[in-house]
């Protein structure tokens, strides 16, 4: 594979086709997005470090809320969990190194501390525990603590959107815990997947709801969306394509990554629209490897220390790019010449 350099940016001059069914134009494009993102993540792993949970005394346990740091830590874990589903990714040194770093942070920070009272942290604890369950070992005390919270019959009985219930249920299911959330097909019918919001008016949060519903109801592409009639699936696929085209036009790279991943999950997304969007994502990727979000593109808030502000502005689209690659490879296969 050769690249030429134009105005400081590498341009692909030769392409290998991706595996059939890939949302990326070719294996090289997919690999470049992944390698750049992993390089940046490896260089910033320490910034994902969550709080030292057994030293957080500033609020009553019931009042401790997740905050951006715990959220980022959980999302890195989720990306690694999905990468571990793909042998070619699991074997990569950078994935293994990030995995070790993540597990070490989880243990060092005692992330399941006081789970029975820190109820606002329970959903993120479930994510982290599901990650450990898949890539290492889920500690039994943490599992029992989460089950105790669920057995108190409030977490799964409070008023939540279908999106929120689907998200939380997914991780409790992954851990094999008892709960009272409605069945996935029921939640799907209650969700916006069957009453898709009009794109000219939809807010970004509405689109995140759509992608997250797809991710969690399909187990990130490992199973079909439950109880969906064929015309409904066709409508969802068409909607995702148009939403992707819209987000490319808006240079919303976080949602472009989410929608590429969602298209990989529901199938039917290996088309020129996805390839165009993936090419645009690659063009947007910065030399350091991160994918910028809209706030970075507009110029960061300078009231915060530069490195921290940039980290929280770009880590999510960068993780999402890794998730998109992992979902794509799990669905479409590694493609010729792909791998570590």
């Amino acid at each position: 594979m050769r690249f030429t350099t134009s105005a400081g940016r590498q341009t692909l001059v030769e392409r290998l086709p991706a595996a059939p069914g890939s949302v990326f134009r070719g294996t090289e494009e997919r690999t470049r997005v992944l390698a750049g993102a992993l390089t940046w993540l490896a260089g910033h792993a320490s910034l994902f470090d969550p709080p030292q949970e057994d030293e957080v005394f500033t609020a009553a346990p019931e009042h401790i809320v997740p905050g951006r740091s715990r959220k980022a830590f959980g999302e890195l874990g989720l990306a690694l969990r999905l990468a571990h589903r793909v042998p070619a990714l699991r074997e990569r040194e950078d994935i293994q190194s990030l995995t070790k770093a993540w597990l070490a942070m989880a243990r060092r920070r005692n992330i399941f501390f006081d789970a029975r009272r820190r109820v606002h942290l329970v959903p993120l604890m479930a994510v982290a525990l599901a990650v450990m369950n898949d890539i290492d070992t889920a500690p039994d005390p943490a599992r029992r603590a989460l089950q105790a919270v669920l057995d108190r019959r409030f977490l799964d009985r409070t008023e939540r959107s279908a999106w929120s219930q689907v998200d939380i249920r997914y991780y409790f299911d992954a851990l094999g815990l008892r709960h009272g959330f409605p069945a996935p097909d029921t939640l799907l019918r209650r969700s916006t997947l069957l009453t898709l919001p009009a794109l000219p008016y939809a807010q970004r949060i509405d689109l995140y709801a759509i992608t997250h519903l797809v991710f969690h109801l399909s187990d990130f592409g490992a199973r079909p969306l439950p109880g969906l009639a064929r015309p409904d699936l066709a409508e969802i696929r068409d909607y995702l394509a148009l939403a992707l085209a819209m987000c490319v036009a808006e240079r919303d790279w976080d949602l472009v990554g989410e929608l590429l991943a969602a298209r990989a999950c529901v199938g039917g997304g290996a088309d020129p629209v996805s390839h165009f969007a993936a090419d645009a994502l690659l063009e947007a990727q910065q030399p350091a490897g991160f994918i910028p979000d809209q706030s970075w593109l507009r110029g960061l808030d300078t009231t915060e220390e530069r490195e921290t502000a940039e980290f929280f502005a770009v880590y999510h689209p960068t993780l999402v790019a890794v998730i998109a690659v992992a979902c794509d490879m799990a669905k479409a296969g590694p493609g010729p010449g792909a791998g570590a």
Partner: protein
Amino acid sequence: MAAAAQMAAAPVTAAAARALDWLSGAWEAREDEDPRLAVEALALSALCRLLCGSAGGAADQVDRAIGRAIAEPAWAASSLPGSLVAAVGALRQRNGFAASAGRYLEALGALSADELDGAGRSGESNGVLLRLALYGVAPSPPRAPAGLHRLRGSAGEVRRFASEVEACSAFGTAAVADEPAATLLEGAAIAAFRVYDLPLGMRLLRAAAYACGRRRAAGLEFVRRSQCDDGSFGDYDTALARLRARGDRNAPLRVKLPVTLQALWTLAELESPRFRLVRSALMDRGEPPSHLRNDALRADPGAP
């Protein structure tokens, strides 16, 4: 004209009738005489006449009201599509503006091939539009647009790609069949609607339809639902209030005329792929008048 007649039962027919009502009232309520606005008003009445069919009497009344106020419309000061629709409409109706419109078209007809191509400086489709309007032929056979990468560029690049699609498809009168471009254009159109850039969004939506016969509901519904109670298109209450506060006169006409014209154009073409504005409003008028016959320009320059 046949395609326009087939649209008699289409929702755009009712939308056009309401728009004509708005135009009639808004023209009467104007505060200044503006020859440029007269061109756009004539273009809108011509389009409504096309879309409404039997309701043409109302359009005639609007034309007469404009004629009582404006002696010579500023044909060249308006957008090219609007000017051409208005001028050709005046010739067809043989109304009080026919002589003036004839002179305008005659001046355009005197342009050389190089000058016509130069008309594409702000977008290559202008040259194609002129050739279609003046001679009824596109300058080259339809081809697939090649500049798809422009949709990853600036707003100017996106406009250039839309222009390329307009030119390649001769404003939708020739099929170019490019489904990915159609979806990407429609996505860009919706992105424009989300920041309420209606003219850009509607142009991109039409280009999407030119690139592929298939259409989705999202963009079309947005345009449909942009029609106000008074029949005009676009919710500009805040912008109009600001303009009024600045003492800007004729703001409702100046802001809403071009948007309403574009909206009806877009609705008509999206509701019926057989309707194309250039064909119905510009090309279907028999042989061009003798002063517009220029065999050198009518010939396809791309032909051997």
